[in-house]
């Protein structure tokens, strides 16, 4: 996710959405076995990103872009993601990470590319519904 103060701005710094924790305790794992809404929403966002990638921006892709944006904006508005002071717009980008093709038992170089960058979304309470 990237943030800017002006509509004409371009984010210079990108932060991962809900980065994974360094480690989880046994008790945390136990709770998450029954109740893990944040992670499942993260998986759904991942599914939307995969569908965008597979469809290569064909028809209906607006749905997936808007679905991701709605969820990111909702996370911001509900205080689950902190934003920099003065930020008035949010954008997101999707990266595709894969390895170069090598033999079946050799892990190749990891390639990390930006696949798409969204337009800017105003940080008002429109993502909540």
């Amino acid at each position: 996710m990237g943030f800017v103060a002006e509509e004409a701005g371009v984010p210079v710094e990108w932060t991962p959405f809900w980065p994974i924790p360094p480690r989880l305790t046994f008790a945390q794992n136990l709770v998450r076995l029954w109740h893990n809404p944040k992670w499942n929403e993260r998986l759904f966002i991942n599914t939307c990103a995969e569908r965008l990638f597979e469809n290569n921006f064909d028809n209906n892709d607006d749905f997936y872009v808007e679905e991701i944006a709605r969820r990111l904006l909702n996370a911001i508005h509900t205080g689950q993601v902190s934003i920099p002071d003065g930020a008035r717009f949010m954008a997101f980008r999707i990266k595709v990470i894969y390895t170069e093709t090598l033999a079946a038992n050799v892990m190749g170089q990891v390639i990390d590319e930006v696949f798409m960058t969204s337009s800017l979304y105003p940080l008002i309470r429109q993502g909540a519904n």
Partner: protein
Amino acid sequence: MTLELAVRVAEIFLGLALFQQSLEFLRGFGLEKKIALVRALLAVFLMMGIYSVWVESLLLITSIVLIKRFRGPYNGGSDTMSILVLMCLWLYHIAPSRWWQEIALGYLALQLTISYFQAGWVKVVNPEWRSGKALGEVFAFTAYPVSESLRALAGKPRKLFIASWVVILGELLFPLALLNKTALIIALSFAACFHLANAILFGLNRFFWSWLAAYPILMWLQERIAL
């Protein structure tokens, strides 16, 4: 296990799975939150065995609404399995005779068995799965590991190789468990542990509860075909 008992236990487990999913959706917003409230209540009725056919009909309708809302399942295979179990239990209740009831639940048991075998087959024909590389890549850079500490497993090729083959063989051999009751209990325990591991390592908690709901039907089928 009698047919009636298998259905009752499956309904309790499915109710638990649907209640768990609904609780997670309650944290969401918009339509999904409203539907989750209704489904949570219906899931409680399902567990209690109240008006089963009506409750299952409403759960099916709301499942279709959710699929339309998300343009596919929200949580992949776990939603698909929940709907399959739900549909087969619903068909059991509306079936005109015992024979059709058995057909409906036999279909569910068959799908469950095929789901494991097919997953094993897809892996065994893939050289990257056979070498352990595919699992290594999952830990190395995909979005699935639930903590950074798990990424270190990508650097343990021997463990990944063994784990890959345990999963492949477990899935491929699963259908053979239908031949014997003890073998089936062992196979279902293995499968439940596999789903538990996926929940702990990759956060796929909904799969654990959804698949569990179908196990009683498989136990019924094993006894049915053994007769």
